[in-house]
Structures are given as structure tokens and as C-alpha cells.
């Protein structure tokens, strides 16, 4: 909401400085978004009158004016189309300085002398556009400084109100807060009942009393359609961010801003028979003031006449019943629509109006007739006419009512953590228009009708804190109860994995959880990604089913910026739709590309391969101390190279994948490759083993190497499994030290070199038992894998 400091000041009996005002508003919970001077920075502009006006002899678009500046008649050349004899104008005198630094000098324009300039609103920084020069009211005092005359030393203040403070959406509302804060008198405008001078009324029927428990209306006839809004009215509206439209619209807007009651004026001549507040009927449409045609939903309340809807209740009027330049009789509406029912209705039609904004937040149920009297008074003074009696239809039962709230003194102090004197509490509440009555241990409080946000004791406690000052409540340093955080030693957390990967040269990244459906489909064509109903863009439209989508895009982003060596990891959720419902699984994923190490003098870098990636993943797994529970198994994944992809199994469950990105996908994404990826469920990595010490053997180690020739189809794990199965307590370690194909090895075969390490805890092993063990291993390898020893 925008308002002017001066207008607010009119409501306060004591002057408040702008500085105080701007400091206090945020501390009352009213955020100040911006402030702006209501006029540009200028001097030397006074009220003057054009006493003569004729065509400039040498220029079609210019006039020669004789202007009375209060002391003499001077010549001014003016380009304003509306310059004419008899109007009061804003004269920038010789020596005046206008916004932007323009200095007015005596000069000749096309051969004619000009002793100043007649200003437009734009030239004085009063408006963004203007049609001609300013026309001041005819009673404007000639010679008076325009800043004083128009009271331009004023500030436009825009505040952002939280949705609970509908009561502050008016000058009156803000003034109430400032008055209470400064303990100064609220100087409310006097609203006088405007007696009916005609008997005309228009029937009002309330069908939906729950939605509209109060509706006041009045007929005003014989208004002057030619009348224009006075300058003061236009100025107040302008300083509140509203454009002047016509006296009738201006007055309804003015009362809305002043009191907070939305009003609407119908053209009486266009109303048929009656006003009926009712629910919309199926298929009904309305053409709104903004010229859009809307098909009404049945959940919507409308104002209708015998022909159909003429307004959406509390939102916007219809075009067909609206006032125009020809309107001479109006029906003025001042109604109450209750928030619970009005809420969300405007939004479902994509509408948001000053009126809906207020009704959704709650309009004071005592305002309707006051507002109509206030508007009548203003209208009669501007457009003339005769007013009929106010018709008020009300349903007491559904009127919003405030109930008594019990407030315990102890609770105030417990919640706030400060002990306030009883008198302070009751005074603070009273200054906010609450009726406070002391009872044992506290008070009963009746909040004013306009405070929709105050219903229970803690609401009152907030008010006390707000006016006592949040910053006057002490800081109480946390005293933690002795509760120990027992971090489990056998639990691995994100921080451990992060540390591990960072140490291995990975950068942690955070990518969006919603990704491009095209990339998603490319990576996992078989999983159906959860789609957003209202994505922010087509590229961020589905929830990721794998962290790879975001990581690969990040690789691309970096490659496009000449960053070729990329090592990234991310932790976060993936969203997988299953028959059991949506799984939101915590994953950890990584991607690497380019070389194993950065270029350096002491060591040659080489292209990454699968085993670089696997090594990193094994390091993560090793953190658990449970590496034997993890199995890497060749498998096929749509996104991965069919010959370089592995499924990761933990306790017989698939927990992740690793491998080279499928070259086909790599090409489609325009990535430079090869690229290696892993993704694994965090859950599988969480459980760690508590180390249990094993005594060290004092006896010698015996190492034996085996060079085996096996078929290509035999994988390392097959060899390992055979050895492990034979392996007894003596086998303390084994290691694959070589894999070789080529000269000396038959086609479709490979040589695998394995070192077995044997040791006993109790004694030195003798050759015979070592040989016996080795023979058993070799026999098993021969029998089960058709392995042979390399000659």
C-alpha cells in the first residue's frame, strides 16, 4: 500500500517527523518498501494566471501569453495546448530551477520575449506523462509558491503489509498504529450523516448472508456528469499511487484508502429491478470492468440484478453496469464480504484488486454505513446531486464478532521471557482500542472489530511485545540442558563421504532437483519422472530420478567454459515413482571426466578409465569397513556403456550403478567424453563396522605368486571367489597384481597374476603345507575355471 506522509499526518493530532515515522513503521511490523518525494526538486515556481493568450506569430505550436504573477503582467511563450486565458497555472519564474537542473532564464523564443515558463506536471516531477500545462483551481492564490500551495514537501511511502494486518490497509489503520506507538491522539475525520433529500431507494436482497452479512446502499440522483475531481483529491490519490479517473471512481477510491472500506458505484440507469447478493449460477458469465469476460464458478458470490451478475462480490464490478461520463444517477454500494468465503475467489480468475485484497484480509464490520456517508458527503460536494436514504441490510448472526479473550499475566511473562508490570500490559492493550478488564491473575480483553488477527491470548501477547518493543525484550543466553548428543561410531554420514570425495579431488555441487524431461528420458527411458504441474520452465519440469541429469548438465556447462577436467559429486534426493508410491531416496552421485590427475611436471597424466571411478567408489565403501558386503556385478544400464557398467549390490539389494556414460548419450548431450558416473544410495553406506582388534602374528609371511591363464569370459571376481572358498585361516591377503593379454597368451584368453599371502598366528609355516595349500588352490582354479598356470 502507498500513502502520503501528509495524509497520515492529518489523522494525527501531533506532528510526527518523517524520520520517526520511517523508523517506527518497520518496528511495528509494517515493512517500508520504498519512499519517494511526491514532486521533483525545484524552486521558484509560483501560482499565476494567464490574462491573455494568442498565437505565436512565428510558430504554429506556440502561444504568446500575458501572465499575472501577482506583482506584474509578464510575457511568456508557452507550448502547452491547453494554455488559454483565465486559467491558473504554475509559473517557473526567471531564476527558477527545475528538476534535472534546468535553470529558467529570460530569453527569446522564435523572436518573442519570454520571462519564464508555464510548467506541466512532468516538468515538476508530479507525473510520468501529462497532456499540457498544469491547470490549478480557479481560487489558487496568485503569487503563492507552488510547493506551499500544493503542499509538495511530502513523501510517498510504500509499505508491505503482512496478510494478518488487513486493518492497516488504510490511512486510518496506519494512523491508529502510529498514534498508539507515540501515545498521541488519533484525529479521526468527522463523518456526518448525510440526510436524504430524495426518497429514492433500490431494493437489496441478501441471499448469501454468510458470505455477505452486511450490505448498505444508497441512491444518488442528478449528479453533474461534467464535474471533475478537484486537485486535492487527485493529488491524494496520486500520492497513494492511484490515477484519477472520474469523480465517482475517485471518491470511492479515496474512501477505500482513507477508511479501508471498498465501495462500488453502479450506474442506476443500468440496473434492472433489484440488487441481489447470491451465488453464481452454472454457466453465468460477466464482462468485468477490465473488459475481460469470465465464466463464473458456482463457488463464487455475485451481485446481480434481474438480468444477471453485475459484479463479482468483493472483487470487481461489471462493465455493463459501470458509471460512465454520461452517468447522472448512481447506486452506491458499501458491503461486507467475509474473508473465509471471499478468500481465493479472485485468484481463481487470475484477479487481484484493491477490493479483494482487503476483503480477503478482513474489513471492519462497523465501517459500511460510515463509509457510505463519507462517500456521499464527498460526492455531493464534487458532483452535486441528491441522495436517497441509506438502505442497510444486515444479518447480525453472521456478522464477524469479537469475543472476550482471557489473558493470564503469567503467560505473558512466560512466553516473552520478561516480567512486565501489570499496568504496562493493560495500558498497551488499551492504546490499541481494546477493552481491558482486570480479573484475578490477568485480564479479559475485547479486541476492536477491525482486528481480525486477534483471537487468542498469544495474539494479545504479540501486541504487547510489538508495542513494548521486540528489542526491549532481553536476550536470554541459551542454557542447554545436559543432554548429550550421542554420535554413533558405526554410523557414516554425509560429512564422511563428502570429506572422502573432496580429498580425492571432487567438487561438491548442488543442482536443481527438477530437471529437463528430455535429459531425464534419455538417461532413464523406463522410469516415469514425477512432473510438476506448474514448472518454472520447460527445462526444469520433472523431478529427477537420478542425480546424473543435473551433474551431466553441469559437466556440459563447464565444458562450454573451457573447463575440461571436471570432477563433481552431489548428495540429495531422487524421486522415483514405484507401485508402492513415491520414493524420495537420499543418493550420492559423482561424475569425472578428462584425465586422472591434473597436468604436472613429475608425473604424466592419462585419460581416465572405469577403474579410476571404481577406485573412488571403493574408497567411499571402505569408510564403512564392510567392503566385503558390497558386490560389483557387470550389468546393463540404459545410460551406461554396455561394456563398462556395473551394478552395485549390498546385502543382495541393488544400491547403485557406476560406469562410463553411453557414447550415444554423450553425443546427444554434446559432451566431450568419455565420462564416468556413479550413483549410490546413501542408506547402503551408512552402516559401518566397529573395528575389532586382531592380534598380530609374530611368524613370517609367505608370499606366492600365481600366473593364471583363463578365458576372457572369466572375471576377476570368479578367480577371487574360488581362492576365497579354498582360503582358510592361513590366507591373510591376496592381490591381483597383473592382468595381461597379448603375446604369449592364447587368443580369447588372458593372464591374471595373483599374489597370495599366507601366515599362521601360532607358528612358522612349513613348505609342505604351503605347497599343499597352493596345489588345492590351483586344482580348484583348474577344475572350476579351466585355468592353467602360465609357463
Amino acid at each position, binding site marked *: 500500500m502507498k500513502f502520503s506522509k501528509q495524509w497520515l499526518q492529518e489523522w494525527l493530532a501531533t506532528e510526527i517527523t518523517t524520520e520517526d515515522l520511517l523508523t517506527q513503521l518497520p518496528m511495528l511490523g509494517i515493512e517500508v518498501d520504498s519512499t519517494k518525494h511526491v514532486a521533483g526538486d525545484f524552486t521558484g515556481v509560483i501560482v499565476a494566471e494567464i490574462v491573455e493568450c494568442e498565437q505565436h506569430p512565428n510558430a504554429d505550436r506556440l502561444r504568446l501569453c500575458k501572465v499575472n504573477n501577482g506583482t506584474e503582467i509578464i510575457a511568456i511563450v508557452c507550448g502547452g495546448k491547453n494554455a488559454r486565458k483565465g486559467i491558473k497555472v504554475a509559473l517557473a519564474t526567471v531564476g527558477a530551477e527545475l528538476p534535472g537542473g534546468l535553470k529558467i532564464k529570460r530569453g527569446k523564443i522564435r523572436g518573442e520575449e519570454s520571462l519564464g515558463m508555464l510548467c506541466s506536471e512532468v516538468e515538476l516531477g508530479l507525473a510520468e506523462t501529462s497532456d499540457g500545462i498544469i491547470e490549478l483551481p480557479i481560487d489558487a492564490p496568485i503569487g503563492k509558491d507552488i510547493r506551499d500551495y500544493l503542499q509538495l514537501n511530502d513523501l510517498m511511502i510504500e509499505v508491505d503489509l503482512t496478510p494478518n494486518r488487513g486493518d492497516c490497509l488504510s490511512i486510518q489503520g496506519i494512523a491508529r498504529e502510529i498514534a498508539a506507538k507515540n501515545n498521541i491522539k488519533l484525529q479521526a475525520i468527522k463523518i456526518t450523516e448525510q440526510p436524504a433529500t430524495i426518497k429514492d431507494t433500490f431494493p437489496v436482497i441478501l441471499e448469501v448472508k454468510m458470505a455477505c452479512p452486511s450490505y448498505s446502499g444508497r441512491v444518488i440522483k442528478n449528479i453533474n456528469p461534467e464535474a471533475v475531481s478537484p486537485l486535492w483529491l487527485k493529488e491524494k490519490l496520486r500520492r497513494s499511487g492511484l490515477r484519477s479517473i472520474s469523480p465517482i471512481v475517485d471518491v470511492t477510491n479515496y474512501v477505500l484508502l482513507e477508511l479501508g472500506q471498498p465501495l462500488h458505484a453502479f450506474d442506476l440507469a443500468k440496473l434492472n429491478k433489484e440488487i441481489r447478493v447470491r451465488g453464481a449460477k452454472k454457466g453465468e458469465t460477466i464482462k468485468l470492468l477490465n473488459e475481460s469476460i469470465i465464466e463464473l464458478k458456482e463457488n463464487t458470490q455475485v451481485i446481480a440484478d434481474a438480468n444477471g451478475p453485475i459484479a463479482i462480490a468483493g472483487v470487481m464490478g461489471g462493465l455493463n453496469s459501470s458509471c460512465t461520463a454520461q452517468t447522472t444517477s448512481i447506486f452506491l454500494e458499501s458491503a461486507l464480504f467475509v474473508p473465509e468465503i471471499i478468500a481465493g475467489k479472485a485468484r481463481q480468475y487470475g484477479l487481484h484488486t484493491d477490493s479483494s485484497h482487503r476483503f480477503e484480509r478482513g474489513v471492519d464490520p462497523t465501517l459500511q454505513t460510515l463509509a457510505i456517508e463519507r462517500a456521499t458527503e464527498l460526492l455531493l460536494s464534487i458532483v452535486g446531486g441528491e441522495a436517497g436514504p441509506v438502505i442497510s441490510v444486515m444479518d447480525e448472526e453472521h456478522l464477524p464478532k469479537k469475543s472476550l479473550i482471557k489473558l493470564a499475566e503469567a503467560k505473558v511473562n512466560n*512466553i516473552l*521471557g520478561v516480567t512486565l508490570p501489570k499496568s504496562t500490559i493493560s495500558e498497551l492493550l488499551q492504546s490499541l482500542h481494546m477493552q481491558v478488564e482486570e480479573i484475578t491473575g490477568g485480564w479479559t480483553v475485547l479486541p476492536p472489530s477491525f482486528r481480525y488477527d486477534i483471537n487468542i491470548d498469544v495474539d494479545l501477547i504479540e501486541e504487547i511485545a510489538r508495542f513494548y518493543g521486540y528489542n526491549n525484550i532481553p536476550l536470554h543466553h541459551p542454557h542447554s540442558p545436559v543432554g548429550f548428543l550421542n554420535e554413533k561410531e558405526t554410523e557414516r554420514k554425509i560429512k564422511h563421504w563428502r570429506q572422502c570425495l573432496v580429498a580425492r579431488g571432487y567438487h561438491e555441487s*548442488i543442482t536443481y532437483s527438477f530437471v529437463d524431461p528430455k535429459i531425464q528420458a534419455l538417461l532413464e527411458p523406463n522410469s516415469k519422472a514425477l512432473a510438476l504441474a506448474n514448472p*518454472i520452465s520447460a527445462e526444469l519440469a520433472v523431478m529427477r530420478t537420478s542425480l546424473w541429469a543435473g551433474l551431466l548438465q553441469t559437466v556440459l556447462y563447464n565444458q562450454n567454459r573451457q573447463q575440461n*577436467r571436471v570432477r563433481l559429486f552431489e548428495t540429495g534426493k531422487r524421486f522415483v515413482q514405484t507401485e508402492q508410491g513415491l520414493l524420495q531416496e537420499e543418493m550420492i552421485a559423482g561424475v569425472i571426466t578428462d584425465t586422472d590427475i591434473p597436468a604436472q611436471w613429475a608425473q604424466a597424466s592419462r585419460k581416465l578409465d572405469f577403474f579410476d571411478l571404481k577406485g573412488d567408489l571403493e574408497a567411499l565403501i571402505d569408510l564403512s569397513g564392510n567392503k566385503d558386503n558390497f558386490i560389483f556385478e557387470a550389468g546393463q544400464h540404459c545410460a551406461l556403456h554396455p561394456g563398462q557398467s556395473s551394478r552395485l549390490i549390498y546385502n543382495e539389494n541393488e544400491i547403485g550403478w557406476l560406469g562410463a556414460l553411453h557414447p550415444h548419450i554423450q553425443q546427444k548431450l554434446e559432451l566431450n567424453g568419455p565420462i564416468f558416473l556413479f550413483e549410490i544410495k546413501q542408506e547402503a553406506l551408512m552402516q559401518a563396522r566397529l573395528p575389532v582388534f586382531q592380534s598380530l602374528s609374530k611368524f613370517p609371511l609367505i608370499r606366492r605368486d600365481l600366473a593364471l591363464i583363463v578365458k576372457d569370459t572369466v572375471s576377476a571376481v570368479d578367480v577371487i571367489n574360488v581362492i576365497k572358498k579354498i582360503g582358510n585361516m592361513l590366507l591373510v591377503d591376496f592381490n591381483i597384481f597383473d592382468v595381461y593379454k597379448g603375446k604369449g597368451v592364447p587368443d580369447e584368453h588372458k593372464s591374471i597374476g595373483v599374489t597370495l599371502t599366507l601366515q599362521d598366528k601360532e607358528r612358522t609355516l612349513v613348505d609342505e603345507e604351503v605347497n599343499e595349500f597352493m596345489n588345492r588352490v590351483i586344482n580348484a582354479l583348474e577344475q572350476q575355471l579351466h585355468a592353467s598356470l602360465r609357463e
Partner: protein
Amino acid sequence: MLRAFFYSDLYMQQLTILIQQAKEAITHCNDLAVLDNIRVQYLGKKGTLTELLQSIGKLDPVERPKAGQAINVAKQEISVLLDEKKVALDAIAIGEQLAKEKVDVTLPGRKQSKGSYHPVSLANARLEAFFHQCGFTTAYGPEVEDEYYNFAALNIPLHHPARASHDTFYFADGRLLRTHTSPVQIRVLQQQKPPVRIIAPGRVYRCDSDVTHTPMFNQVEGLVIDKESSFADLKGILHAMVEAFFEQTLAVRFRPSYFPFTEPSAEMDIQCVKCHGTGVDCRICKATGWLEVLGCGMVHPNVLKAVNVDPEEYQGYAFGLGVDRLAMLRYGIDDLRLMFENDVRFLEQF
């Protein structure tokens, strides 16, 4: 007799010459292998001195002991010279080897490239460390939430104007992406009876994207429910938290605000960490001297009722802070969007 005498004389002469030769050879030797040869040449089994000793039988028996002693003395003398020379040559050889093995210690070491933590993780870790010290534990919740947890249970009924300001992402079935970490409050209180003291870090989502908003961002929620935690406690812990986070004394201020799930509600501003609250020419705080960092308040009784906690018996506070903003302030990052672009030149700085 004469012959014998002659022979003895000759013998001793020969010995003197040999000693002289050996000494010279040793003095001029500057190679360990040559030195070894010299040892063999004179003292070896077939060495000249050894042979001379073996030929002692040709001497007059009377002369023999004297000659034997002379040879042994000579052997001893040469042996010492050889040892000394060996030590000297060893020292030279080691010196040469060491000189050869000298490296340029200013050359960089062999390495993997430097990895890095995301600034949001760094900030989260600092916050977690602080709150864990204060007895908080960390809780987590789902990101695809439903209307109940994200809104209704938090005292934001349908059509409440606060919902409009949340710019919620929805799914076709009515579920949504959580707009704040506050649903974790409800999930925790459903499972755990007070006293409760948790923080809940995580991703949150709003359908909003411009220079200062990304559709996904990070929050840390805090919740304390017990019988006595007050607004003054809330102020105290949050003030301590920002001072610990920024490692400096910082003024804070609390402004009344509105969140349907807290009452009273507040926003906390900290003194600008860039201009130290002066506001002079400061773009970070827009010359106000203050930075808005979090929203907080006393948990609304309706929230407690929604999880069957009696608001007459229990009370407490909650807060929600934007971690991205804190990280940006801490590390001087001037553009929120950088946080999620993951340019490695950005990432490697942390």
C-alpha cells in the same frame, strides 16, 4: 754369513721401498676401487707385503724376528693409511651422491587436484556445529510434501493469503514441493514428545526466479518445544548463532512480522557484515545498515494442537533461516545464481 747378511739388508731395503710405494699409491689414490686394488696389491693373500713375509724363511733365523716385526708394523701402517683413505674417499663419494641427488624443493609436489565443499555445505556445517553444541539434533523430512504438512498443520488453511505468497510448485495429484522446512516441525512432533530441540536443514522450492531468487534454495529450520523456552531465549540463541557464524560481534534487531505458525512472529536483521552497520555506500544492505536473515517466532498453539501437544503445558520457538544468503554473506558471494550453476571455477574457491 755374508750372503745372509746381504740378503737381510736387501730384504729390509725392499721393505722400505714397498712401504714407500704403498704410501704413495694410497696418497694418490682417489678412487675406492683403486684403493681396494692397492689393499689387495700390498696386503692381499698374494700381496707384495704378504709375499715378503712369506719369504722371511730365506733370512737368517736371527734376523727373522726383526724382519717379521718390521713387516707387521709396515702392514699395520699401510692398513691404517688404507682405512683412513677409505673414510676420506667414502665421504667424498657420499658427498658427490648427495650433490647429485639434490632436488629443487620449490617444484610442486605430485598431486590430485584440490576438491572442495559447496559453500552451502560449509555454512550448514557451521550452523549444525553451533546448534549441536546447544543440544539440538538434526532432523530431515521429505521434499515432495502434501498440503497438510506444508500448510494446514502449520495453521495455514486453504485460501489463506499466506499461501499465495508461497509461490508453490504443485504436482497433478495435489502434492507439492515443500516451500519451507517447517513441515519437518510437524513430522518431528508427530513422532517425538516434548521436550524437542531440533534443526532441519534442507532444500526448499518456490516458483520464483530472478536475480535474487532461485526456484530452489536451502533453509535450516529450528524448533524448540519444552515448558519454558521463551521469546527472550529465542532472541538469545539466534544472536549467539549469528555471532558464532560470522565470528564477530554483531548487533541484531527483531522486527514484528507474520507467519501463521508462530505468534508472536519476528524477523531478525543483523548489522550489515560488509559495512558494519554504517550503511555508507553499501550495496549489500542497500545502505540500511541491516540485513534480513531469518524469520522466527513462538510456536502457534494451533500448530501444537495439530500434533496433540497441549499448548497450555508446552511452549517454544521456531525459526527458519536462508542458508544460501548466510553463505553468500560469509564468503562475499554477490550473485545467488552462482550457487547452483556449479562452475568449477566458482566451486574450487571454497
